[in-house]
């Protein structure tokens, strides 16, 4: 379960980082974002990555937690890469789904 949560949440964080890169912005939004927005996206992306790593370590210990986190974000990055290639205009939809999924899973994780 933790792995799925990490995977879903980091689709969002890595999407933020990808969206902050000028080379993807035309594909995603049809225009370049202003520097303020870029900064915000970068910050949000890194913050989410850091928080999820911290949470993972807190829950499963440094060695297991960090290992799971690294392996999970590999596949978050794969999803973001595939979206950037094949469905760039659906980035927001994919992120909305990822947000819903992580919310549901997180809720389930905290409740049970």
């Amino acid at each position: 379960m933790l792995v799925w949560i990490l995977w879903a949440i980091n689709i969002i964080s890595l999407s933020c980082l990808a969206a902050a890169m000028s080379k993807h912005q035309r594909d995603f939004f049809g225009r370049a974002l202003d520097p303020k927005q870029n900064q915000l996206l970068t910050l949000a992306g890194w913050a989410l990555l850091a928080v999820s790593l911290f949470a993972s370590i807190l829950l499963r210990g440094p060695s297991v937690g960090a290992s799971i986190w690294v392996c999970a974000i590999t596949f978050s990055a794969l999803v973001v890469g595939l979206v950037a290639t094949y469905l760039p205009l659906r980035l927001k939809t994919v992120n909305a789904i990822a947000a819903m999924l992580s919310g549901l899973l997180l809720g389930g994780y905290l409740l049970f």
Partner: protein
Amino acid sequence: MRIDGKSEGPRQSMSWLHTWVGLPLGWLLFAVFLTGTLSFFHQEITVWMKPELHQSLATQPQAQQLQTAIDALQTRAPDATAWNINLPSNRQTATEISIRKPGDDPRDRRGGERLTLDSATGEALTARDTRGGGFLYRFHFDLYGIDRVIARWIVGFATLFMFVAIISGIITHKKIFKDFFTFRPNKGQRSWLDAHNATAVLALPFHLVITFSGLLLLMFMLMPWGIDAAYEGGRQDFFQAMNGRPVQQGQQQNQQRGAEQQREGMQQRNREGANDEARAANREAGERREQQAQRNGERQAGGERQANNGNREGRGGNGEGREQQPTAPAAPLGDLVAMLATAEQQWPNKTITSISVTNPNRENAEVEIRAQESDSLLSRGQQPSMKFNGVTGAVIATPEAAAVSIPSAIYNLTTLLHMARGADVALRWLLFLSGLLGTMMVASGLILWCVKRAPEQQAQGYKSFGYRLVERLNVATIAGLPIAIAVYFCANRFVPVGIPLRPEMEIKFFFIAWLISAIHATVRPHRSAWIEQMAIGAGLFFIVPIVNALTGGRALWSSIYHQQWTVASVDLACILMGTLLAWSVYKLQTKPAAVVKARKTVEKPVEKSLIQAEGQA
């Protein structure tokens, strides 16, 4: 520094290094990566390859399964010195028990009579003779049919090359961060490079850890000198020191001899089968070596034997009462089910798989219950365990694990991840999928070599020998090995049960299939070879689940219905593999080969498929 003397920058020189370090052992690395990736599930594959075990369903609660196992043990061997029970889990369908009789060596971990029980009925199951997933696991670092030490040197070199290729690849990669999420499909060479980069960069931590730990696992063989120089008794003393046991001068002589026997011992240990490959620096390693040395010693003639007995006595004084104890008076065995409940309460999120009882039905009985998943990967044997008094059921306090030094922690973390030991299901799957990415990275690198040189070959008007060799080896490896694996799975069901040397026969099918694929790749035009072999591979992998259902295994619908994931996951992985191969056939066929525009008069007929690989993009 190039052989041809051209000047170049560091990035170009690294690119050159990356190409030429990667290519020569690339095919071997592909095989090592693919079989290694499958080895994350070698236990599951073995169960799949023993369809007799599929009948055992783990639907009952664990307490009941344990009671069934104990009943079986009480009727079979009430006077044993030790029992070991492995309950069904997500990695096995049946209950495995092993019984150690009074005459057996109590320290021999693999010894004793082993039995597989139906977890619900307690009925003993006899499975067919097969190497199962163990063959793929062993092939991953021992190859097959050649001396183990030589094989490990070869694989060790390949691993080192891999490490060099990864590091030079990182340096060569121009825009590692800028191109992090970039993939440009349908652009020929560009796409292959992107695919190679993506599979490499996304799973880079995995690749680094797996390659580095691969070297660490072989380091005692590759670089023994440091230890040999620092410890008088060689590796044995080193392991003893690692385990925190003092090395005694009086033992030096014996240990010297022990060290000599060690090589032999190691080989013997290897013969003993699956799981103990890399326990080189395992906590038990020192002990194991001692056992081996002793066991070897016991096989030797009289005078030697006496010396060895002396040796053993010397050790007995040193060790923590590891000598065989005289039999204690009889006492009824405590309630193991209650102990299991205590352990379950302690670890609500863990799978309890292993229960071992020493001196059952005696006053000095002791029960140890272990969970499958580790809490920490920084030291060995961190699966949580609880010890109980076997008569009263009282918990026996276990000493805290000793602190681990940083080098040990690094060794343990990376090698435990390499072997997915103590990993839960999720982490195991993540490692498996990362391994697939690594396999694709190697494959795309090999194909890229050809794609990049295709225009050159085109201009030249014919394909040079080296180019053709690489092309053919690519087909024979990248398409051939999956075919061989699928054939191995099918052979498991069609080779008659009970014939002599049955496991070897299955393996023969594996290699014959691989050989046929290599011959086919040589005689067929390049593009056709790809399409045909990918199609055959896809077909075979789709057939595997059907064959499973028809030849006594549990059919996929039934295994999913009964949540027998051990069996279902192998079937599902085969379907996934078939789909991947079928998809590449589709891609190859729908994208016509680029038409070759000959610049000059063509002397030799140029195959239209020269740039076939682009079709795969």
